[in-house]
């Protein structure tokens, strides 16, 4: 029997899905814009790779899909990258593949549309304003008289998100947005940006799957977030079992019901203010980003990419969602500006678990600042029976790591 053909459109996991789906017996056709890093070894496992920056153009995407459908009996089509969610869901609706309601996908993708919908549906939100000029932004900043968050209206992961205190920082963030927009061929809009009141507090996320039978709750992740201004994560525990979990899950069910979230995987990020009030930061109709698939796989003994593919193929999610173990991720970011390399040769590590260490700086590399999740130097993933065991294992790994920094002092008076 020939393998079922799956079309994966732009991976949010460096193409690791191709490997896991191939191992699960699927044949994968991969479509990518080529803008983000994919592991060549996994691309080589695909039966076909279509690499073109025009992927973001609806006509081009549709034409490519129709060609693939003439060539293969396509079982399902899905994406794990944020950019392609609207196009893929529209196509799936048109052709009858299982996927999320495209209108909902669009309103989740556009951060301003999402805030407006939240307000309409009775969710509490931070104060926000859609701005089209720097002057509008400056007026909002002056009116708030405290830190605000700059967000591209439709960015990718944490790219372009900045905490803003001054007009100068606002201008810098806007300049970066324009560059980001050009790099993404205009997919990240630069004609408008969203400014929001900054709500400080602990971060949680919730992962769930909705199929035609109901909701499958995977669990809550406790997230230790890096310091402002860049908001890069540096620690995750899954599944988190703290007291806040109940409120996060309750709010997630409220989201599913009021937004009528109809199908697929979903990742919701929350922040809890000092009064215990939960705010949704954002909703992404995919599971949390690389390498967090590992946390689910290890904690629940599943192949989550294969289970999601089966969901898109059949409309039913059948994998185990009871976590027998706990998994953690610790990310190490540049401690300073300079050339940094990391030696982890003596550490036993395997993606099979229970300890997996990814060294993103095996050779000396210059790092200037932490501006997105991509700047991580080291990822330490552990899995054990308890959270405490995971943390101890991660600490033991970190104690064996050698970080070499080559840097130069700076004269503070120099402009």
């Amino acid at each position, binding site marked *: 029997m020939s393998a079922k053909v799956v079309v994966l459109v732009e991976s949010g996991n460096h193409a690791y899905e191709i490997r896991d789906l191939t191992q699960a017996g699927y044949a994968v056709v991969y479509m990518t814009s080529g803008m983000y*890093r994919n592991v060549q070894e996994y691309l080589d496992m695909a039966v076909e790779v279509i690499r073109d*920056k025009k992927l973001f153009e609806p006509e081009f995407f549709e034409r490519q899909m129709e060609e693939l459908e003439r060539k293969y009996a396509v079982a399902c089509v899905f994406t794990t990258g944020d950019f392609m969610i609207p196009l893929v869901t529209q196509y799936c609706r048109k052709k009858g593949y299982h996927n999320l309601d495209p209108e909902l996908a669009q309103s989740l993708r556009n951060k301003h549309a999402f805030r407006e919908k939240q307000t309409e549906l009775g969710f509490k939100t931070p104060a926000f304003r859609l701005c089209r000029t720097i002057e509008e932004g400056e007026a909002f900043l002056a009116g708030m008289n405290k830190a605000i968050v700059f967000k591209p209206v439709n960015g990718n992961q944490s790219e372009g998100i900045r905490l803003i205190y001054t007009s100068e920082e606002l201008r810098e963030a806007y300049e970066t947005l324009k560059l980001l927009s*050009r790099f993404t061929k205009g997919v990240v809009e630069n004609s408008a940006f969203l400014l929001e009141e900054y709500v400080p507090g602990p971060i949680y996320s919730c992962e769930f799957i909705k199929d035609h039978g109901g909701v499958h709750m995977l669990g809550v992740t406790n997230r230790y977030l890096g310091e402002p201004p860049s908001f890069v994560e540096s620690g995750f525990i899954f599944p988190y079992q703290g007291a806040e979990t109940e409120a996060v899950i309750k709010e997630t069910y409220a989201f599913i019901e009021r937004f009528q979230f109809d199908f697929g995987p979903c990742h919701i990020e929350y922040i809890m203010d000092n009064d215990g009030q939960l705010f949704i930061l954002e909703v992404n109709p995919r599971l949390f980003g690389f390498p967090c698939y590992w946390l689910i796989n290890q904690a629940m003994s599943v192949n989550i990419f294969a289970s999601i593919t089966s969901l898109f193929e059949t409309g039913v999610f059948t994998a185990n969602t009871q976590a027998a173990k706990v998994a953690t991720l610790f990310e190490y970011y540049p401690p300073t500006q300079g050339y940094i390399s990391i030696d982890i040769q003596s550490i036993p590590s395997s993606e099979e678990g229970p300890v997996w260490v990814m060294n993103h700086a095996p050779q000396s*590399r*210059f790092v200037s600042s932490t501006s997105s999740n991509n700047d991580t130097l080291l990822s330490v993933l552990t899995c054990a029976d308890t959270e405490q065991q995971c943390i101890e294992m991660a600490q033991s790994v970190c104690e064996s790591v050698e970080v070499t920094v080559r840097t130069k002092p700076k004269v503070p008076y120099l402009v």
Partner: protein
Amino acid sequence: MPNASEQALFEIVQQAVVHVLNRKVELNENTSLSQEGLDSITTVRLLVELEKKLNIQFQEEHLSLDNFASIRSIINTLDHYGVTA
């Protein structure tokens, strides 16, 4: 149409890279620019700088990290615009 000797073109690109990295750095034509800190945002800054210096307009399809991986790959990309060594 712009034209320059190989050394002159190398220097133009090198100066543009140093400008966007905003620090002193020694580069040969095969130095990995990502190892030197060039990311998606600074790549676009570099592109804009080269457009100004060479009076060209990069097309979207050339805007990839691969085309800006090293000074050599940038010089190869510039070949599409008639900027040759």
